[in-house]
């Protein structure tokens, strides 16, 4: 049987995700889990003084999913963690809306913090996703800081 889409540990999707469900799923990977660290990226209502009405994400779909899968595998190799899950949305998102959720589970908390922080840093560098901001002046693509 193919697992339901929602059970896949990395996903790129339009719809919203549930933090509780992602945390519950990762907790089911092992009874040896002592720590879960989660990073939730949220759309803000302003950026560098500009009002932001919404942000939206475009992806290079086939490569983005591969890059996200590789990122998870790499995190599992590099850190002493039990499991990691990543879900990123690609759609227009209003302020307060969820963009990305990375959950990392480990026996001890230090590794979960390190791995979760590494995952979001690395996602920004390796996953082909682009953010467009809608402001009162119109739409513009975001150029990330070097």
């Amino acid at each position, binding site marked *: 049987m193919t697992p339901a889409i929602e059970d896949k540990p990395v996903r790129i999707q339009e719809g919203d995700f549930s933090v509780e469900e992602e945390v519950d799923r990762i907790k089911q990977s092992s009874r040896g889990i002592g720590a879960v660290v989660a990073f939730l*990226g*949220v*759309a*803000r209502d302003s950026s560098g003084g500009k009002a932001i009405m919404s*942000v939206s*994400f*475009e*992806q*290079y779909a*086939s*490569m*983005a999913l*591969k890059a996200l899968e590789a990122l998870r595998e790499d995190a599992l190799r590099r850190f002493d963690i039990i499991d990691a899950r990543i879900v*990123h949305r690609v759609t227009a*998102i209003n*302020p307060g*809306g969820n*963009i*990305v959720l990375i959950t990392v589970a480990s026996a001890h908390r230090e590794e979960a913090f390190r791995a979760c922080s590494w995952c*979001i840093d690395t*996602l*920004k*560098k*390796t*996953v*082909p*996703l*682009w*953010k*467009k901001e809608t402001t009162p002046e119109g739409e513009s*693509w*975001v*150029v*990330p800081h070097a």
Partner: protein
Amino acid sequence: MIRVLFFGMLATKTGVRETHLELKRPGATLSDVMEELGKRFALPPKAPYMLAVNEAQADPSTVLKDGDEVAVMPPFSGGLG
């Protein structure tokens, strides 16, 4: 023939999301293709492009072959709001 994809700001600038190109010689590299695309679409030569061949990041020295899928991408900006 190779397939070329543009994303984000580059799709906006070039006005196309996809184009096709003949490789001019055996052993042509990603760098050669970028030069060709630069002429055809007036791409700014110094912009920091991210490049991929067949869905994996690649550097300009990568040798291409018929049927490859090349992606010319602006720096990634996922993850944050």
